[in-house]
């Protein structure tokens, strides 16, 4: 530890820390463009210059390591003038097209200019003309007039993906970021670049011109697209009263978590968000002879409980089947275990998940579902059903999720389901299963509920709803209601009223979740 002084604040900080990190740790932000904690300091934007007592020149906060007794000034007149100078330089050659720039509202250049005083431009010369629409990857557009040459993109592609897709061409005022000919950035982490860019130089066609950043509500969540459990922000549009929006989610962004995903997410997780707003189940429906009847959950629950009870009473509980999936949270899988396996003593409990796909050696795992590890830790068996056998041995089937559709053909499913007396489907999305079952019960998605997930490395991460949910009750709630209705002998669970409470209860029984 060394003792330093930042703006008269006396601090004890670790050896080897840079001034910028030490200051940030003390709640003193130091403006910067090129510095990014994921990379070695670059020192090229010159925005983070600070004054150190006894030194004639200003020094870089991003690369200067603290020393015992160092006295650092981050807001002296000299420092503020230097910051203004950098901003004046950058803005001299900047197109100032904020009104049409997607970065507006979350642009460092804008933010700092606002902070350092809205000075008038002295630049009377002609700005350099540069290309404003250079495609550099499937989704990314580079605007060279907005680029401030911080080279964060270049360093990301050299140090993180190691693909070296971009370079800095030319020199001096003519320096520019470029890909080689039409060799677009071709790796499934490219989407990070639009986020990483401190200004509006790299924008994402997925987001470009769709809305303004300040209209978006930004909430934390966990990416469910594989078992890594990357931390994300879900940016959604609450809409205006005059235009109720069908589309809520406009963007998924990476959220820093050094234990899981550092600062990044893969493009698979970033761009596959349309499922949140599209094809959703909206009502509880009883399907009878080609006629749909809308039900309340109370009524559906009674029907379901009666079916279960009668089979149990007839000592035919072996003819009840349950198909789970690992998009269910730890809490939900735990309750499923308590209700179906331990409570009712059911044996035919299966799991059907999205099929595995090729992962990569960075974040994306083969398991394209977020909670397989949770399933294991809860202690539920990971059995895949044999559809033919299932059809013959089942009178009541409870299906969670729609992943059967990906595993079996609709013909296969139909011929099996025709043989099964009653089928309840708990699903977030419409699918081919809808017409094959008797009752459809809408459920929320991970983005819309709370709970926890266990990632591939056994890290349990809790999350809260990032979006409002008005479409259905979360599965954990449905399972508690069912347990109550069936009077399953685990009364304490009936009192559980939140995922947090369930997780605490789990921790008492399963050391892993403690």
């Amino acid at each position, binding site marked *: 530890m060394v003792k330093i002084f930042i703006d008269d604040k006396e601090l004890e900080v670790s050896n080897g820390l840079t001034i910028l990190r030490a200051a940030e740790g003390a709640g003193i932000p130091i403006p910067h463009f090129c510095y990014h904690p994921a990379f070695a*300091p*670059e*020192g*090229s*934007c*010159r*925005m983070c*210059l600070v004054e150190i007592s006894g030194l*004639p*020149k*200003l020094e*870089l906060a991003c*690369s200067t390591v603290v020393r015992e007794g160092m006295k650092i000034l981050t807001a002296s007149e000299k420092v503020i003038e*230097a910051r203004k*100078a*950098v901003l*004046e*330089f*950058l803005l*001299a*050659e900047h197109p100032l097209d904020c009104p049409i720039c997607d970065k507006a509202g979350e642009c460092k250049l804008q933010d700092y200019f606002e902070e350092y005083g809205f000075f008038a431009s*002295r*630049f*009377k*010369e*002609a700005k*350099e003309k540069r290309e404003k629409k250079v495609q550099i990857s499937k989704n990314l557009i580079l605007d060279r007039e907005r680029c*401030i*040459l911080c080279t964060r993109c270049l360093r990301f592609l050299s140090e993180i993906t190691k693909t070296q897709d971009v370079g*800095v061409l*030319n*020199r*001096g*005022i*003519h*320096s520019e970021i470029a890909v080689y000919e039409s060799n677009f950035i071709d790796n499934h982490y490219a989407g990070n670049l639009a986020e990483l860019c401190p200004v509006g130089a790299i924008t994402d066609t997925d987001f470009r011109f769709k809305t303004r950043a300040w209209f978006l509500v930004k909430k934390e969540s966990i990416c469910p697209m594989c078992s890594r459990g990357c931390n994300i922000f879900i940016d959604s549009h609450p809409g205006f009263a005059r235009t109720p929006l069908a589309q809520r989610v406009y963007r998924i962004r990476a959220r820093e978590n050094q234990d899981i995903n550092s600062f990044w997410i893969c493009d698979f997780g970033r761009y596959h968000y349309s499922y949140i707003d599209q094809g959703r189940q909206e009502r509880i429906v009883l399907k009878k002879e080609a006629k749909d009847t809308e039900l309340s959950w109370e009524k559906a629950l009674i029907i379901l409980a009666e079916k279960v009870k009668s089979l149990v009473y007839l000592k035919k509980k072996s003819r009840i089947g349950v198909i789970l999936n690992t998009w269910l949270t730890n809490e939900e899988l735990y309750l499923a275990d308590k209700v179906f396996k331990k409570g009712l003593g059911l044996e035919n409990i299966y799991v059907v998940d999205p099929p595995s796909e090729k992962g990569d050696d960075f974040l994306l795992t083969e398991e394209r579902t977020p909670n397989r590890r949770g399933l294991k830790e809860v202690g539920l068996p990971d059995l895949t059903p044999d559809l033919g056998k299932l059809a013959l041995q089942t009178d009541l089937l409870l299906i969670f999720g729609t992943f059967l559709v990906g595993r079996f053909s609709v013909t296969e499913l139909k011929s099996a389901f025709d043989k099964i007396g009653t089928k309840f489907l708990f699903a977030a999305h419409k699918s081919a299963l809808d017409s094959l079952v008797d009752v459809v019960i809408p459920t929320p998605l991970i983005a819309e509920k709370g709970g926890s997930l266990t990632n591939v490395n056994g890290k349990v991460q809790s999350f809260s709803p990032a979006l409002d949910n008005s479409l259905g009750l979360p599965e954990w709630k449905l399972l508690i209601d069912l347990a109550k209705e069936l009077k399953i002998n685990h009364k304490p669970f009936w009192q559980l009223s939140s995922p947090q409470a369930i997780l605490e209860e789990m921790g008492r029984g399963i050391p892993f979740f403690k």
Partner: protein
Amino acid sequence: MEEKILTKDFGLKNLFKIKVYLQQGGYKAVKKALEQMRPAEILDEVKKANLRGRGGAGFPAGVKWGFVPQKTDKPKYLCVNADEGEPGTFKDRYIMSHNPHLLLEGVIIASFAVGIHSAFIYIRGEYEAVADRLEEAIAEAKADGFLGKNILEIGFDLEVVVHRGAGAYICGEETALLESLEGKSGHPRLKPPFPASIGLFQCPTVINNVETLANVPAIILNGADWFVKKGLPKDGGTRIFGVSGMVKNPGIYELPIGTNLRKIIFEAAGGMKDGKTLKAVIPGGMSAPILKADEIDLAMDFDSLVEAGSMLGSAAVIVIDQETPILEVLKAVSKFYSHESCGQCTPCRIGISWINKIVRRIASGQGEKDDVDAIICLAENIKGKTLCPLGDAAALPILSICRKFRQELEGQLSR
């Protein structure tokens, strides 16, 4: 008045041939250093000689060598800075083309002293013929057992590679030179780490200017005391002053460090050309702040020039006459640095280009009344705030021109 160490045999025909060079006592210093001295002794001698870097910064060479770790698992490298891009400078070209073996001797002794087995001579791309001459000299030295494996049969190996640049002034900055040698654009590196610990290919590296190394053989042969006496106590030896511009006899003049600037111009170089009147002098290459005609009675050594608000730099003296509008000088300076900025850091990339745009506008007759103030303010915003010394190299002469010749410049403003 000439006290020659480096250029004393330049008059000889075919001095660049090893045969002629040996006849003049060539490679005696290498023999002495490798056969009779320990590396630490050589280092001490060079330190004592106060041999300061001749490239521009004037850092003591012995101290620089001493920064390289003795014990390391990594190879160590020597890079000879022969990029010589500083406008007004041409002395290294003379050394390399007239006396390449003198440089090689310096390279061998420095390498032996620091424990280096691989040296690169980074020479500016335009000097193709000079590079060829160096290659020939290396081949000759190798054939005579002064380079290659087991030099002088003492078990010391050294390979020297000539590496040609390709047109970028910034590669004379030592870390940009390293980047360039590694096959990249010449973007200077952040310091620290310094090249002595992390340099070429991430290994400990010494980088010395041609003239600096060419002084080493004489120091070894004659001793540090002798060398110091040739110059000043804190700044030993001679300097090769390259005089150009409006003088009668432009050329190189090897003179003791500390020689009076007026003497260099009016005696060594024969005074003003065609009876013209002196207006100003750039005393140390284009990056040195300008001196007015009445400011040239000063000793040409590092410290005296700093005191006079300029710098000795590469000791390239550019002489400007009264008839040359100062705007022409400002234009040349801003054009040059704008062209040579690597583009990496903000103030240099945009600031110098901005100044250059203003200067061009003034030159086209569109100058406005606050333009000189604007240039001064922009240059102040570049000074001391860039990643490498190029920012200062541009800002300091620009500031000096604007401040010392403000009236003349403002006379050029039309609006």
